[in-house]
């Protein structure tokens, strides 16, 4: 038995299932799946530029005859939804498993959508494991089902499954050979004439699966007391077992389609039936639609994560624990000491610009004291949204606003927005904060880093040439720590009635190998003006009489030194 993260168990499952191709775009909480798969030499693994492409590569691999797995976070599935709905029709050759990690409670996401709706609307079966052992087992089962029923299979994780460790027993990989590829336009070319026929197949497939799933071992009844019956799946099963070990359970391993007869049987054997599911009432509504009385969302929220205490209290009606949390100052996440984004946001604040923002570490620049961003919607949105602002508020307003995006996000889905601006004669100024890594999710490589996920050298995507090819004539590459030039260039570009792109290039502070000596503040020189606190560096603090730099945190970037009017900083000689 090995103690394994849920995401690592998914990777192990892929290995044991004989997967040939694994693709992904990083996204918390799904990222580590593909990082762990990359450690298996047998499996071709890639970071794709975005989830749609990752999905398409996996579909191609599947139709070519190899088993393929593609992983993403919940919002990534929105990006990949287009191919998803149609690969439901084409079905597979080698098995195809789509892993999607939801984030109830939004630990690291911009919304808490429920991916189970995708399974329902795309007519694709979905499995949901409740611990790491199941995560591994369900991946293998998903491949079997995929090939048996000629369907992609969704595997749904949530943050607490992805990022919890539990014990897993390892098995040897299955012997799996590549299936023969034969040209079959009736199955793989979804023109209307073919697609209509395939839709008939899809509907029958889902009926068959719904019927057969009553016999699947992963949908299991655990009869104990008949007083309380609980239908649940995934992590909520664990919370509910913790709260009511003596209750009866119908634990669903497959959350779409539902095993109707099994549910009817279970409901008839218990006095009060509860459906427990985080987020949307998807199981509950189906159960009720079959005329089965069940209690669900009248007691439980569609928001956030559940807990064992919450379940115990809601069902028993007895207050479980009233110990309140202490009132304390918040501790929000911050840009790291030395982060190059901090310098960009300092410049933006000086210029008092409106800024459409995007998804990445730099989203943290929204928070006090930098307060640099006005919007954050989804990957790539900053550019199109800046254009939208201009079309309502006019060119004069566009001269006081910018779009802010990172290198990985720009490659993911920002480039299309830039094409739009050029084509439709916008004048936006777009800043690409290029730290040449996908940083927020934990430093994954991307086309701008010059390395693949396997650590092999790769061609470096030249952002300047790319932006030029789109039709941008005003392009600058700047060091964000050069505050003077940054301010000048920004002001100049904002005035132009043409679109501009400014690439602020400097490596992520956590990866920057060029070590600088940390700084300290000379008390005799410090006038205690507080200017250095305005950059929001966690290494600088105000003590009684003057500012102090924590030399254990400081990475010596020198931003505070550049803005100090009294030359109060000096390098610490270690």
């Amino acid at each position, binding site marked *: 038995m090995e103690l394994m993260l849920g995401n690592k168990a998914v990777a192990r499952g892929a290995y044991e299932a004989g997967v040939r191709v694994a693709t992904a775009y990083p996204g918390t909480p799904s990222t580590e799946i593909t990082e762990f798969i990359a450690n298996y030499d047998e499996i071709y693994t890639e970071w794709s530029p975005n989830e749609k492409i990752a999905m398409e590569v996996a579909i191609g691999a599947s139709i070519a005859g190899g088993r393929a797995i593609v992983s993403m976070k919940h919002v990534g599935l929105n990006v990949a939804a287009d191919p998803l709905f149609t690969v439901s029709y084409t079905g597979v050759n080698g098995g195809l498993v789509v892993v999607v990690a939801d984030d109830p409670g939004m630990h690291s996401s911009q919304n808490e959508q429920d991916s189970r709706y995708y399974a329902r609307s795309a007519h694709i079966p979905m499995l949901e494991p409740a611990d790491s052992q199941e995560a591994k087992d369900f991946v293998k089962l998903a491949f079997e089902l995929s090939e048996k029923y000629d369907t992609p299979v969704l595997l749904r994780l949530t943050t607490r499954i992805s990022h919890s460790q539990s014990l897993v027993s390892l098995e040897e990989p299955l012997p799996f050979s590549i299936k023969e590829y034969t040209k079959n336009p009736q199955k793989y070319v979804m023109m209307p004439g073919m697609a209509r026929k395939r839709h008939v197949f899809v509907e029958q497939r889902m009926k068959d699966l719904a019927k057969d799933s009553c016999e699947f071992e992963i949908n299991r009844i655990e009869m104990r007391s008949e007083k309380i019956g609980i239908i649940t799946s995934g992590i909520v099963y664990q919370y509910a077992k913790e709260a009511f070990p003596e209750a009866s359970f119908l634990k669903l391993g497959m959350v779409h389609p539902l095993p109707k007869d099994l549910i009817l049987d279970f409901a008839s054997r218990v006095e009060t039936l509860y459906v427990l599911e985080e987020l949307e009432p998807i199981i509950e509504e189906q159960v009720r639609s079959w005329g089965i009385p069940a209690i669900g969302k009248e007691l439980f929220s569609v928001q956030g994560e559940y807990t064992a205490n919450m379940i115990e209290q809601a069902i028993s009606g007895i207050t479980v624990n009233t110990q309140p949390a202490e009132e304390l100052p918040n501790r929000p*996440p911050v840009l790291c000491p030395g982060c190059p984004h901090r310098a960009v946001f300092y410049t933006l604040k000086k210029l008092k610009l409106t800024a459409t923002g995007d998804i990445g570490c730099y989203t943290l620049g929204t928070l006090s004291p930098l307060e640099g961003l006005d919007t954050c919607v989804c990957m790539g949105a900053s550019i199109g949204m800046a254009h939208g602002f201009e079309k309502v508020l006019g060119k004069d307003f566009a001269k006081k606003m910018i779009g802010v995006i990172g290198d990985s996000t720009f490659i993911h889905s920002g480039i299309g927005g830039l094409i739009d601006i050029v084509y439709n004669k916008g004048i936006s100024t777009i800043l690409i904060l290029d730290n040449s890594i996908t940083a927020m999710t934990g430093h994954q490589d991307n086309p701008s880093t010059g390395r693949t996920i396997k650590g092999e050298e790769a061609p470096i995507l030249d952002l300047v040439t790319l932006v030029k090819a789109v039709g941008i004539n005003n392009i600058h590459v700047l060091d964000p720590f050069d505050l003077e030039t940054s301010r000048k260039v920004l002001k100049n570009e904002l005035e132009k009635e043409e679109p501009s792109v400014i690439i602020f290039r400097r490596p992520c502070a956590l990866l920057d190998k060029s070590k600088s000596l940390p700084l300290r503040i000379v008390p005799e020189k410090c006038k205690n003006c507080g200017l250095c606190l305005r950059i929001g560096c966690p290494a600088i603090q105000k003590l009684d009489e003057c500012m102090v730099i924590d030399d254990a945190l400081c990475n010596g970037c020198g931003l505070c030194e550049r803005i100090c009017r009294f030359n109060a900083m000096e390098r610490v000689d270690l």
Partner: protein
Amino acid sequence: MQSINILIVGVGGQGTLLTSRVLGNLASDLEYDVKVSEVHGMAQRGGSVVTHVRFGKKVYSPLIEVGKADILLSFEKMEALRWLHYLKEGGMLIVNDQSINPMPVITGAAEYPDDILDRLKKSTAKAIIINAIDIAKEIGNIRVANSVLLGVLAKYTDIDYKNWEKALSRTVPPRTVEINLKAFDKGYNARV
């Protein structure tokens, strides 16, 4: 046996994750059922972080409920107070005597409470307060403060020293085994 619940809290970047993984491996070595819940992603960037470690005969939920932690190990003073309500009555509280100002304090929007240790001592918890940073500095690497704290915790369990050594050695990066063992020993034998 009832499950043992250990909540490890601190500030992103302090090494709480590694400590929880040592505990996870220890429990697995001792053939307990074990679950460890971690925090990845955005919250790791200097935010308030929490990891849950639960082990025993059978563990369902990877999360410790409010009021049910047997041990609360905090890498930072204010975080100890923030998560104190997770500790069961009479539970064990181990606190690293270090304060790290959060951004609202740095910007002046909030004040770092100056009575944290008093408030902690007033709770029902058996509180141990130790400056693991100073001990780690003495050993020569501030980053092994987490192993010092682990040593303090280990002392108050009935698990053999040898088992701790083994779990620690197989969890930390190979070239840091020696210094981590040293830090662990300092914590284990610290007079607190």
